[in-house]
């Protein structure tokens, strides 16, 4: 049982980082970023290249991923999403744009980094083994802690920095924020960059454990969607909660339902649908998105 909880916590921490970026972009601009998973994959590949090809320390790889993805995010917002949002009649149109970006990033990743699974050497060797009650490799613990630190840092930034406050105001009421003198364009761009950066960081963190491959993008996006739905779309705390809940559900579900075989995920997904049908705004979201 202890093992299951620890697994769930670790999974939850990594999920939460992925979900955070997605929910930030959604809350600021009402864009459901289909390309989030692709950004995550790109972040993983960048860290891999820096660490395994250029033989630089892991932390350099992480920072490079973060910076590169932040720049990509900012450019995407400035040159693609902003003009389209300004001119389209229905804001859902950005979904097509986001999907186009997802395809595009997939294609670029394939051409630059190839089709193979990539991974970097273990950061720390060894496994924590507490009487076989809890077995956890040290590198997983490190990544889990880093992920939680990242989440904490992000919350502090959103709560106390000037930019964080501006973005929260934007998320609450775009019009009101604008009237109060918040530079909407500027903070939308920063927010998008920050969201993309979080995706890149998540990719950089996980490449040390699970590695990265081209195919992870799409499914990761969908998983992240589910997390923000559980917690409530566009709510930071909701995304974190959603990440941990999904992680826990998988960990517990896989153990409890193991003997029923193929239906484990069917049960998880079906119960998710039932939950959302009963409580559409998720746990802490605003109703009706």
């Amino acid at each position, binding site marked *: 049982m202890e093992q299951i909880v620890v697994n769930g916590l670790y999974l939850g921490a990594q999920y939460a980082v992925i979900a955070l970026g997605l929910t930030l972009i959604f809350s600021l601009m009402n864009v459901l970023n289909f390309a989030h998973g692709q950004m995550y994959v790109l972040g993983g590949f960048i860290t891999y290249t820096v660490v395994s090809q250029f033989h630089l320390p892991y932390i350099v790889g992480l920072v490079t991923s973060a910076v590169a993805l932040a720049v990509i995010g900012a450019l995407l917002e400035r040159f693609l999403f902003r003009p389209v949002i300004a001119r389209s009649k229905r804001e859902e149109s950005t979904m097509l744009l986001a999907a186009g970006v997802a395809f595009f990033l997939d294609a670029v990743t394939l051409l630059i980094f190839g089709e193979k699974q990539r991974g970097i050497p273990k950061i720390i060797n060894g496994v924590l083994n507490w009487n076989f009650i809890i077995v956890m490799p040290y590198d997983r613990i490190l990544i889990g802690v880093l992920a939680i630190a990242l989440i904490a840092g992000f919350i502090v930034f959103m709560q106390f920095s000037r930019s964080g406050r501006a973005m929260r105001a934007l998320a609450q009421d775009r019009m009101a924020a604008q009237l109060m003198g918040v530079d909407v364009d500027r903070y939308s761009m920063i927010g998008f960059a920050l969201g993309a950066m979080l995706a890149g960081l998540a990719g950089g963190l996980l490449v040390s454990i699970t590695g990265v491959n081209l195919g992870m993008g799409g499914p990761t996006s969908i998983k992240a969607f589910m997390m923000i739905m559980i917690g409530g779309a566009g709510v930071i705390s909701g995304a974190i909660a959603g990440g941990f809940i999904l992680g826990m559900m998988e960990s517990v579900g896989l153990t409890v339902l193991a003997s029923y*075989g193929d239906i484990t995920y069917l049960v998880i997904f079906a119960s998710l649908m039932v939950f959302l049908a009963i409580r559409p705004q998720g746990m802490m979201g605003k109703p009706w998105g």
Partner: protein
Amino acid sequence: MKIRSLLTTTAMAAVTSLALFGAAYAANPVLKIGFVGVTSGPAAAWGTSNVRSMQTLAKMINDAGGEKIGDKTYTIQIVTFDDQKDPKLSIAGMEKMAQEGIHYVVGPNVDDGAAAVRPVAEQNNIIYFPYAFPKSLYVKPASNAVLGMVANYQSAPAIYKYLKEKKGIKTVAFVAANESDPLSQRDGGVEAAKALGLKVVSSDVTYQVDTTDFTPVLLPVLKTQPDLLVLSGVAPAAAPQLIRSARELGYKGLISTETAQDAKVLQEGAGKLANGFISVGGASTPEIASDQMKKFVATYTKMFGEYNDESNTKVYALEYILDTLKADPVAINDIKSFKAEMDKFTAPNPYMKGNEKLSYVGMTSFGQKRQISVPLVVNVFKDGKFDTLLVARVD
């Protein structure tokens, strides 16, 4: 703007390369061989190693002046179609091949695609070489599909038998991704294990293809303490993670799979933990690779920057097509002759040392010769490369 300029450059590069390709080999008549499979998205690795194997072999042949079939010398051109692992697109790809006048196609890579293209292939007289295992594709009345590799229901008994006799395993556990191909392979593996008198202690656990942490998946499996853990139909991307999780959870037994893997991927993803991992490969281990195989690997590496060990088995399909056509040149436009030739065809295997032969097999599994004979080479991973564990033959 960034994207526009990138687009222009790429478009120009594409056009130029197409033009160059046409010009370089204009002298000989062209023989087109098709490929329909997945080269983008999640499963890109499968089709990409296929396409690149074909392109490498074609380049080797063309650089040497072309392939002499009958009294004509042909330049080999590979026509590829990316079906994105979508059976609906696989059909479109096969139609495209028919339109190009192609009669021999390698692919598709997965069960659903291979089943979906069957009507098109039969209507348009196309022989295709899928990398999919369902027997219904190869058993009569089906007759246009030729299995391009060793099926897991053929390799599994050989591997389990060897491990039972040599390593004394008694219990087996299976874990598979929640998708058609791996699940079918798992069922085949369970059957083979039971037939050998092994005890199957766990076979119900599955995982989603997008799993990023396999610890919860493996926990219930490893509780049953199997002697052998089989990763049924495991994708090259998931194999190192599964191995790593199993070892880190303290699992000491053997781990094996019946699909081809890549040594570099295993090394990067699991490092030392992957030592002892048993998988099915082609013929590139140093003990048995011929000079032709070494040249193939070198050319491949030169063309694409990095070799993929999955290509060891994937080089064979094109070799078989061309050699069979050589044996009966009429078959270039007549698949009836090709089918007739398949029953008696035999040629030396250029990729393996010794007196190995190429021939069509499958009488036992399908009741007709609808499989290419690829040597069943079982490898064991050690410190970044594969060693040969055993070599067997399929009939």
